[in-house]
């Protein structure tokens, strides 16, 4: 493998893998990219894998009997295998490639929600969901199938209110608990094992939205024991256009397909069609072949660094950021969960989030401003919007210091 990383964690070395971090900028200021939570940058290993696929090994998959198509099919299916290993699940037929997390969740809301759940059952989400894990369930609720939507509260500290979750589960009518494993606003890491235990005790399945968590923490779904899991390639240093739905085989098999087309059928007459086995059944049409190859390279890349190192680096950054940002006058950080990752939403007392992000951008600092696709959470905390800084494997302590410093100046600017 090219670009094998030294053991330990060398952020300077890692930064060299990301061409954009040294690309020219409009005003010549170095890019301080603190929006990895929205989408991460891509290492050259990912870019190279996609290029190599297009330059030497590209053809449509599953269809041709010729060598090039076999090669392409092998690399596509190898990506599926790599995802299964990444999530530590044994059967790669349980890996369905999607466009992104959003599509993966919607597929469950349609296939399992409309196709398998029964009237009178309920779905539980939480107040801190990304819209991707809220709106599909609202649509299910509103589809006139008698499925209820329950919302688990978030505490003032920004944690999932487990006592409330127990209440919501108490009547045994909850069919599915669909919650984020890590908040994209509060940084809160949800006690996933507890959630599974509570839900399973009441006969409810569990879907985790791992869009953020899969980037920051090692995942072992076999140990975790959830029933569905989703994540999205572009946040994991992979390309856009590819995401993952994992589900237990029997669940994926029970789900009717949402899309019909090529590759997802085994027999078609004008009168009827027979579905192909899982996962093909849920992957109609030409899949994102080049992107699957890119995602495979991204997984190889983070594996080569290793989650021990990634988690340690993030812990260091997070603690440092907590200390530094708390010291900025007039700054308040949203949420104070015990277990949190490298995502910080904050407000400055004398500046609107949008104005603040414009200032920071001038200093070369990319942060997001707004509600981060989590409007109900902002409503719950009485906020119109916040700025958010989120870290990646290439984020440095110096960048955090620079952010804190810039925030101090921004407060003076608006004074």
């Amino acid at each position, binding site marked *: 493998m090219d670009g094998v990383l030294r053991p330990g964690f060398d952020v300077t070395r890692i930064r060299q893998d990301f061409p954009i971090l040294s690309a020219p900028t409009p005003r010549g200021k170095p890019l301080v990219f603190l929006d990895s939570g929205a989408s991460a940058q891509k290492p050259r290993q990912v870019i190279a894998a996609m290029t190599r696929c297009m330059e030497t090994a590209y053809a449509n998959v599953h269809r041709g009997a010729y060598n090039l198509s076999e090669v392409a099919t092998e690399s596509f299916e190898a990506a599926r295998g790599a995802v299964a290993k990444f999530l530590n699940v044994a059967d790669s037929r349980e890996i369905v490639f999607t466009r992104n997390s959003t599509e993966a969740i919607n597929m469950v809301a349609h296939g399992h929600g409309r196709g398998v759940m029964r009237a009178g059952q309920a779905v539980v989400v939480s107040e801190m969901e990304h819209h991707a894990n809220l709106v599909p369930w609202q649509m299910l609720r509103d589809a006139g199938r008698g499925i209820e939507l329950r919302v688990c509260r978030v505490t003032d500290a920004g944690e999932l209110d487990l006592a409330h979750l127990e209440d919501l589960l108490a009547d045994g009518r909850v069919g599915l608990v669909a919650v984020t494993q890590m908040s994209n606003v509060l940084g809160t890491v949800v006690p996933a094992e507890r959630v599974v235990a509570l839900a399973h005790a009441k006969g409810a399945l569990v879907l985790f939205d791992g869009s953020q968590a899969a980037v920051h923490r090692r995942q072992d779904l076999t140990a975790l024991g959830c029933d569905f899991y989703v994540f999205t390639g572009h946040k994991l240093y992979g390309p856009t256009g590819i995401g993952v739905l994992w589900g237990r085989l029997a669940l994926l098999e029970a789900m009717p397909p949402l899309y019909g087309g090529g590759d997802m059928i085994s027999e078609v007459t004008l009168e009827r069609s027979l579905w192909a086995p899982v996962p093909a059944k849920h992957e109609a049409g030409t899949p994102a072949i080049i992107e699957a190859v890119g995602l495979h390279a991204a997984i190889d890349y983070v594996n080569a660094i290793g989650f021990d190192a990634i988690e340690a680096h993030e812990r260091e950054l997070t603690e440092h950021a907590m200390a530094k940002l708390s010291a900025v006058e007039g700054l308040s950080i949203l949420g104070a969960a015990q277990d949190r990752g490298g995502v910080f939403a904050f407000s400055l007392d004398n*500046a*609107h*989030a*949008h*104005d603040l992000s*414009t*200032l920071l951008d*001038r*200093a070369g600092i990319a942060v997001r*401003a*707004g*509600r981060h696709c989590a409007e109900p959470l*902002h409503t719950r905390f009485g906020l*119109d*919007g916040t700025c958010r800084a989120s870290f990646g494997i290439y984020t440095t302590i110096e960048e955090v210091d620079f952010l804190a410093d*810039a925030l101090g*100046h*921004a407060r003076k*600017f*608006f004074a």
Partner: protein
Amino acid sequence: MFDDLRDLYQEVILDHGRKPRNFRRLENATHHARGDNPLCGDRMELFLAMEEDGKIADAAFQGRGCAISMASASLMTETVRGKTPAQARALGNAFRGLAMTGTCPDCGAELADDMERLSPLSGVHEFPSRVKCATLAWHTLNNALDDNQEDARSE
């Protein structure tokens, strides 16, 4: 650190942003519309009271948003008073041009004074994602004049 941003955040803007003028409900409003910029969470409600002769007698707004959108709404309510709907719309068009390009070559003499008053917002043209903040109030104005009950959106 941010000195080059004084073009965008001129003192007038910061002042109107902090203390927007005509920031209230208009009890005698004849026209009314909401405006919404989902990207940054700016939201406003605009009220107009029209005279019998068809001129805008009073304009006021409420809402929350960034300095740019608040200042723009504040300056707008000051500027449109006494104008006919047609004049107000024409001014809005000219202002959108200013916000997008930084200049208004077609602004004839009759708009000159008003555009002068709005010119502190011209710096926004260098910030494509902020242009919407500056133009939201004017989109909302059009909707109020149209009696359009849908939310205005600055796109």
